[in-house]
């Protein structure tokens, strides 16, 4: 059952196509991530779904109903903004209560719902504080409580973790995911961080320059990218792409290993000249070039820490290989192709 679906949404600003025909479905209870680089249109799409902006054409459906003409408050959505948008002059309690007050909810019910939401997010003890007295993580929880209290059909989250410092982000990430799994509300989450996307999403929609490139589970997207953009956007370092017959041949750095480490399955060999080695503790990253093969960027190999370098150093050339099953082919338009 679709909680939210968009049909051929287009959004034009002057000559720019911010969104160029996106059709997407987010199912009940699903955590759907909109992933893409800055300016790709993901936030615009989210705002169109919320009703804060109108699409140039196309329809938004929530719970099966076309909502294009409805204001945000009638759509059954709740939104958490990048800087949370908490009302600075209200206490935490009143912040959470605000959306209920606008609907004219009776006092006892407001009390009940606010206490329930605050309890669920563990912020009861902060009820009388003002936003400026809270830490980043606490503010995020208040924003979530305020969203939760509306009992929405879908949560819309716009990069809520980007304002937290790096250390906090990891724990906030798992808290958010746990929270969503508890309440089982469909969620659309916008981010440019692929680690967040892979870690949290049930499905990921990769967007670039207003177009939907691929929708799928993290596994589908990572292992079977639909085009070169998706292939290189996910994964650090990005997938290696080398020119081949007008199109490209791709393989991920972690699949690009010294031949002697790949016993068993059929492989394709590449002579690899190492230019630089980075030791990152948990792994080694080797940068270099393939003899006789042209590539757009430096070719990289990612070796796990326990694999011995065995004399691999800058300047050394070694035979590296990739399992045939790990090779990906892209045609001259950059799209996924079959192995010829």
């Amino acid at each position, binding site marked *: 059952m679709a909680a939210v679906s968009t049909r051929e949404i287009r959004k034009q600003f002057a000559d720019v196509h911010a969104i160029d025909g996106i059709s997407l479905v987010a199912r009940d209870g699903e955590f759907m991530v909109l992933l893409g680089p800055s300016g790709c249109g993901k936030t615009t799409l989210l705002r169109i779904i*919320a*009703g*804060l902006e109108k699409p140039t054409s196309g329809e938004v459906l929530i719970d099966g109903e076309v909502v294009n003409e409805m*204001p*945000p*408050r009638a759509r059954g*959505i*709740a*939104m958490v*903004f*990048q*800087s*949370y*948008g*908490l*009302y*600075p*002059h209200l206490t935490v309690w009143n912040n959470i209560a*605000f*959306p209920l007050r*606008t*609907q004219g909810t009776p006092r006892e019910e407001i009390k009940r719902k606010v206490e329930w939401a605050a309890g669920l997010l563990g912020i009861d003890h902060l009820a009388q504080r003002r936003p*400026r007295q809270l830490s980043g993580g606490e503010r995020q929880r208040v924003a979530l409580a*305020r969203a939760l209290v*509306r009992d929405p059909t879908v949560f819309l989250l716009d990069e809520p973790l980007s304002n937290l410092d790096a250390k906090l982000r990891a724990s906030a990430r798992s808290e958010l995911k746990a929270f969503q799994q508890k309440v089982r509300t469909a969620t659309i989450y916008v981010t440019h961080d692929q680690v967040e996307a892979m870690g949290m999403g049930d499905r990921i929609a990769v967007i670039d320059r207003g177009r939907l490139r691929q929708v799928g589970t993290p596994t589908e997207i990572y292992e079977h990218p639909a085009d070169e953009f998706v292939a290189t956007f996910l994964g650090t370092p990005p997938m290696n792409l080398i020119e081949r017959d007008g199109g490209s041949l791709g393989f991920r750095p972690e699949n690009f290993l010294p031949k002697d480490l790949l016993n068993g399955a059929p492989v394709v060999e590449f002579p690899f000249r190492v230019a630089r080695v980075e030791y990152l503790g948990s792994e080694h990253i080797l940068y270099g070039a393939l003899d006789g093969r042209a590539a757009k960027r430096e070719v990289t190999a990612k070796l796990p820490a326990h694999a011995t370098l065995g004399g691999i150093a800058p300047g050394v050339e070694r035979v590296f290989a990739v399992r045939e099953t790990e090779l990906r082919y892209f045609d001259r338009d950059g799209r996924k192709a079959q192995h010829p």
Partner: protein
Amino acid sequence: MTAITAVAPRPKSRFLLDRPELVGPLFIAPAILYVLVLVALPFFLALYYSVSAYTIFDPNYRYVGLKNFTDVIESDIFRRTLINTLVFTIGAQVIGLLLGKFAAMLLMQDFPGRGIARALVVLPWAVPVSLATLAWQWMFDSLYSVINWTLVAVGLLDPVHRLQWLGQQDLAMIAVTVVHAWRLFPFGVVIFIAGFTSVPQDILDAATVDGAGFWRRNYQIILPIIAPIIMIALIFGTVFTFTDLSVVYLLTKGGPINGTQVLGSLAFQVGILSGDVAHGAVICLFLFPFLLVAVIVLLRALRRREI
């Protein structure tokens, strides 16, 4: 081993300009001096004169205690003056700032000609007080008032009973209030626009998503957030109006028969025109407690400006 030559200690004066502890106070001294000599000193002088019997005709200093104060407070003219000052101030703030808020909301929309509209709306406040007041004086003229002419032309006024805007007590009060409000409202417009645009978009979006309609967004969300800024505007506006002399002096000279006198114009009348410096000083000093309150409230608002 190289010999270490003894170096003669350099005179301290060479590094005078290097020392922030010296440069700091040095840089700020002229400003403080100016303020002390030409603001603090006159203030104390005013106090000094207020308890004397100093007039320019008889400039001997004679201490008379608080006699001047009682003289002034018991005078009917003074009471009238005090009331007028309050009436004009409050009236002008209410009209001026309400209009300003309303105009700000209009001017924040994008429409063709908005730039010109904004430039025109700013004019009343930008133009020197005396010149603007002169224009209004002409507009309120007893014979040729364009306002009267229009009212007659529209049929609301009988040509025989022309309104004496500046000659009749109640009309004069209205006239002065209108001019003050007119001067004040552009200030209000700019402050409100600045305030409205300072509210982060996220908060406005959140309120929209939370179901707040136009009025609720304005009165429950935006206004409380920009309250400190409004407060500052209110203080400045109040001080400008309360301490005004120019508008009243030029429009009505305080008339009819002291009917529109304000503290400033009365002080001028008594202290300069009549030469009674002592009583004039007392009237001036009545401005002080009011200013003190305004300053304290302003300080509070300045402190609170970041929520």
